[in-house]
């Protein structure tokens, strides 16, 4: 944990800084590889690598809880289901299907729509402050207690309503998935 302690003082200095840069580049590389790969299973594997690297960055920044959850939920849960679906898909059929290339133009149009707000948020006061105040995500009411606790305080007290709303959304999505899946299952019989 020595490296992580050093990272506390400043975001992009020292060993931790170099590690961060390395991880970030790797994340970018794997993310590009996800889109680039012809084989859907390889794409999924690169996405998995990307998730794991993101988790590494989280842990590097002493957000262990988020890092662990990132692995547990995305790598251990969601990606497994992705792979499950991809493997069920007939490889020959998948190879013959046009792999979504016709969406190029739309993607290009949509890119600024998402990129500009994202950059704007990154540029706001709150986030530039982090480099100077590394405890911002570890403190509750001015007291530094650790990332896990801080996250739980935020989630279950400060933002309880949005949290619950999000979970209701997920529930709806889940029920929808069950209904859709059920219908296609009956078609088999």
């Amino acid at each position, binding site marked *: 944990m020595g490296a992580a302690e050093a990272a506390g003082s400043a975001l992009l200095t020292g060993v931790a800084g170099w590690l961060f840069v390395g991880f970030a580049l790797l994340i970018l590389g794997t993310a590009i590889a996800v889109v680039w790969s012809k084989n859907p299973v390889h794409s999924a594997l690169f996405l998995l690598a990307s998730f794991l690297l993101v988790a590494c960055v989280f842990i590097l920044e002493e957000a262990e809880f988020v890092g662990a959850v990132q692995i547990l939920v995305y790598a251990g849960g969601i990606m497994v289901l992705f792979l499950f679906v991809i493997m*069920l*898909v*007939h490889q020959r*059929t998948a190879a*013959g*299907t046009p792999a979504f290339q016709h969406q190029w133009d739309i993607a290009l149009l949509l890119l600024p729509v998402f990129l500009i707000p994202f950059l704007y948020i990154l540029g706001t006061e709150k986030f530039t402050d982090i480099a100077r105040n590394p405890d911002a995500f570890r403190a509750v009411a001015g007291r530094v207690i650790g990332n896990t606790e801080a996250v739980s305080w935020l989630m279950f007290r400060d933002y309880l309503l949005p949290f619950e709303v999000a979970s209701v959304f997920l529930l709806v999505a889940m029920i929808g998935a069950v209904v859709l899946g059920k219908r*296609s299952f009956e*078609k*088999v019989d």
Partner: protein
Amino acid sequence: MTDEKLSQAERDEAAYFAERAAAAGVGRPLSQGDTPPAPGEPPTLFDVQEMELNFGPQHPSTHGVLRIVLKVDGEKILEAIPDVGFLHRGTEKLFETETYPMGIPHTDRMDYVAAATNNHAFCLTIEKLLDVEVPRRAQLVRVILDELQRLSSHLVWLGTSGIDLGAVTPFWYAFREREQILDFFEEYCGARLTLNCMRIGGLPFDLTTGWVERLLEFVDDLPARIDDYEQLLTDNRIWKRRTVGIGVLTAAECVEYGLTGPLIRASGIEWDLRRAQPYECYDELDFAVPTRQNGDTYDRYIVRVQEMRQSVRILRQCLDRLEPGEIRGKVPRVIKPPAEEIYASIESPKGELGFYCVSNGSNRPYRMHCRPPSFINLQALPKMAKGHLISDLVALIGTIDIVLGEVDR
């Protein structure tokens, strides 16, 4: 005669049976390959994918070289087409080229886990053709050998079908007892599996000294051992979930498919050749024919286990009645039966095992045909497997209790 010449009623009936046969998975060509997608509609990524899976011929749970072509959706079996014949050795052809007594060792190789019953059925057929009376002692010893063989065959079935469902331990227990039974065979006739232990008109040898006493000891021990197997399986919840309601056959279906043995008895028909058409001295023995009503894999299991207990009972009675005496009937040195035809059958551990013999008056059978229970029983597999999962197919192969040597002959 083509279908056009049939009357309306016959055509209706033919359509009915064709539909039934199709429902049972009979009659689709084997090498159809992947089902082509409907014309004009390109396959999408999320279409239901039908996969063709070769189950066997080399597979841990096909109990020999049986190939089953499966059409599966995920793990659900849409269609199962058995493909047999990998062990075909032309036994029926061999019978024709050798004298009557020389045919007996060939029968050993058919149902190789129950050789004694094969010998018995073969000898019984020729004896019937010759009209030979088998001496009483020979009859009793034959019944003893039959029942021992039934026990050992059921033990093999119990062990292997347990392993098929992941229960490894009963296998070792069952094979411990089977080894002892094989020891008895070995002591009697020198062989453990391919026994060749009966002759036309009687037996080749008399029992060795002490054999009966040792067998009595073993038989006294056996019910407790059977309790052991039941302890592991009968009330086991997982075992029940894996077997109850799997591969249900109604009594009518059993008759329609010609199923015999424990399969038909588990569906509620109390039919056992030992009782229905007694041979040797079965008519004077006191035993029950266990039946169950549901006709699923669990009931077939129960029926077989109860049959083992009945076999113990029969063994005790036979051993009790055994008295010194002749072991061979009056059989001519050269066996030349009249130029006639005969069919005789016995209740083998798997079902009705029959031989159809056509003689032309010479010392060799002109035609010797075997009615193998495994072969006929296996026909019901497509019907039983349809709609079940791959895991159940394994249970179903186990529950039919096939021996590929007998299926393919």
